């Protein structure tokens, strides 16, 4: 079974280790020489050598795989560089960026889609995570097993195999999710009305976002004019542009385990005395949650918000598995990273792709900065 590809990579792995050792010794010797020139003691010289020797794998890797590529991509983002292109690479100034911001509809879609996920998916994900964390925090028997079950989707969630199972479950006609919805709707008519109104509101919401992308709101008008969907209507998960993002939202909610663990840590850090004092004063569980737990959880909510938002830009696997071959649906669902991959590697347009990478970086930076600026208004750090 072992043929060239496997032996080849083994040889490269050994070569990489040799390279790392040699470069580490070189960096460490250089650091020691500098320390010696600076008049350091013998002991300090030894520590300098050892420190740089052990840290060098990261330092060297940082230079090779992060700093140099980023500088190159900054340069390429101002050129029309294309791999295997017949025309020579030229400096084109801001053309790539202007094209992206003003003319590229797919890039606009990816931003609007991310906005949709941020406005709808992220609050739902954090809500479910908080709900589960509060449940677990009741210190019931078997808490460990429940915690394991809630975290398991994080381990499995982004494997394409598991995503394919979601694809099966989300089939419009015979998928299990819609079958359950249908069965429940038929059994209990009031729930039927409820789920139809949820479908209606969701479709209005999605149509609105699609309207922003297309610059025309005729679809929104149509959905509105059609009114409350018919009695046997079910969500069209992986079939309609009105629902494609909703399927991703489901997956996001399912993978809320990390956020849940962070909320759980936050709940554990709240001093017990606060709750006991409030209970003596006659505050009920609900009131205590909103007046004590929630304000003290805001730093954790803030953390999850910052990390969650960055994660929204990066969603790749679910879109690849659910919509890869379904070209008409792609614009209604792509994330920024998916767009980066698609735009760059369909024609190996390195210049354009570099511009997208840098825009994504800038967006992440700006959004994170805004969040840090806004946090004074609602995050309480008093107790920590």
């Amino acid at each position, binding site marked *: 079974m072992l043929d060239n*590809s*496997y032996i*080849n*990579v083994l040889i*490269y*792995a050994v070569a*990489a*280790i040799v390279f*790392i050792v040699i470069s580490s010794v070189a960096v460490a010797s250089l*650091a020691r020489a500098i320390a010696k020139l600076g008049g350091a003691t013998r002991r300090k010289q030894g*520590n300098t050598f*050892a*420190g740089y020797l*052990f*840290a060098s*794998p*990261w330092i060297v*890797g*940082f230079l090779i*795989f992060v700093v*140099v*590529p980023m500088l*190159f991509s900054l340069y*390429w983002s101002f050129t029309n560089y294309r791999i295997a292109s017949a025309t020579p690479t030229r400096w084109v100034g801001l053309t790539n960026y202007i094209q992206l911001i003003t003319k590229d509809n797919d890039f606009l879609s990816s931003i609007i889609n991310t906005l949709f996920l941020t406005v709808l998916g992220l609050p739902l994900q954090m809500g479910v995570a908080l709900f589960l964390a509060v449940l677990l925090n009741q*210190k019931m028997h078997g808490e460990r097993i*429940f915690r*394991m*079950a*809630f975290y*398991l*989707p*994080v*381990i*499995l969630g982004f*494997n*394409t*195999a*598991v995503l*394919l*199972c979601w694809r*099966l479950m989300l089939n419009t006609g*015979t998928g299990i999710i819609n079958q359950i919805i249908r069965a429940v709707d038929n059994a209990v008519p009031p729930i039927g009305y409820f789920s139809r109104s949820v479908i209606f509101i969701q479709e209005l919401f999605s149509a609105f976002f699609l309207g922003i992308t297309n610059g025309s709101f005729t679809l929104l008008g149509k959905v509105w004019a059609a009114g409350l969907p018919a009695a046997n209507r079910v969500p069209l998960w992986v079939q309609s542009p009105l629902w494609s993002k909703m399927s991703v939202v489901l997956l996001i909610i399912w993978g809320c385990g*990390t956020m849940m663990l962070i909320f*759980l840590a936050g709940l554990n850090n709240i001093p017990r005395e606060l709750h*006991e004092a409030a*209970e003596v004063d006659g505050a009920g569980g609900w009131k205590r949650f909103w007046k004590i737990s929630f304000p003290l959880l805001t730093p954790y909510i803030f953390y999850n918000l910052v990390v969650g938002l960055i994660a929204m830009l*990066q969603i*790749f*696997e679910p879109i*690849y*598995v659910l919509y*890869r071959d*379904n070209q008409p649906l792609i614009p209604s669902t792509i994330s920024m*990273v998916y767009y980066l*991959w698609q735009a*760059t590697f369909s024609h190996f347009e390195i210049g354009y792709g*570099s511009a997208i*990478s840098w825009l*994504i*970086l800038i967006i992440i930076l700006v959004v994170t900065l805004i969040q840090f600026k806004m946090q004074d208004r609602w995050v309480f750090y008093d107790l920590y």
Partner: protein
Amino acid sequence: MKTTWPIIKRLVFYIVLTGATITMCFPLFWMISSSLKTLDETNSAGIIWIPNNPTLDAYINILHNSDFLRSYFNSIFYTTLALVGTLASIAVVAYAFSRIEWPGRNLVFFLMLSTMMIPPQALIVPQYVFFNKLGWVGTFNPLIIPGYFAGGAAMVFLLRQSMAQIPKELDESAFVDGANHIQVFWEIVLPLIKAPLATVSTFLFVGFWNSLLMPLMYLQTIKLYTLPLYVTTLYNINVTVQPWPTIMAAAVLTTVPLMVVFFFTQRFILESVVITGLK
């Protein structure tokens, strides 16, 4: 406080918790159940929770598929090779950041933490050009070698935190006895951080095993495909009837290693997620 709670209230909590657990684990149950069905049963208009006559045909099918077996081997091969080198280099670097005092340490450490803000995908374009120039497109190298340079700042951070908790006196006395840093690292520090090492290995394993984007970009031929890549080729939108039982059997076999690893290390993982807030 707990004992004064009305029993009804506790019961409600248990029912809600159990309901949430069933919901969260349902995709897994459905995956296994579908893998034991016939093709007609997976497309049936009625709900079949558990097939009446479970059949292993789907598993026999997929295990006769040499492409699937090869991609399984590829996944194990690449994950092992990447995991070993990445783990070793991460441990070495974490040692430098926690057990040695050297000028510039805080600056370098700060730099490393700030790279956690850069989404790895922002680097895929220039890295692709770089690996293309090296002739590494169409090989496993780009998926494995970068990790050898202590890839994964969050993991270094996690190990550093654990190493920093070991009392300094331990290595000082070893140094007095004439040991060097390599001996202290290998004989004193590493044996004391087995649990964090297990955690980091699990995170790395899950990351490599599930990885899709990098293999998609670099493994150009089906002979090199890893599992996540190969499994998606089983689903083909141009075919009207998908071979769902076979796909689900492949999915079950793909997730088994993840489940096994998670089962054995979940105790460490659930604690450490809170320390670093990662994944």
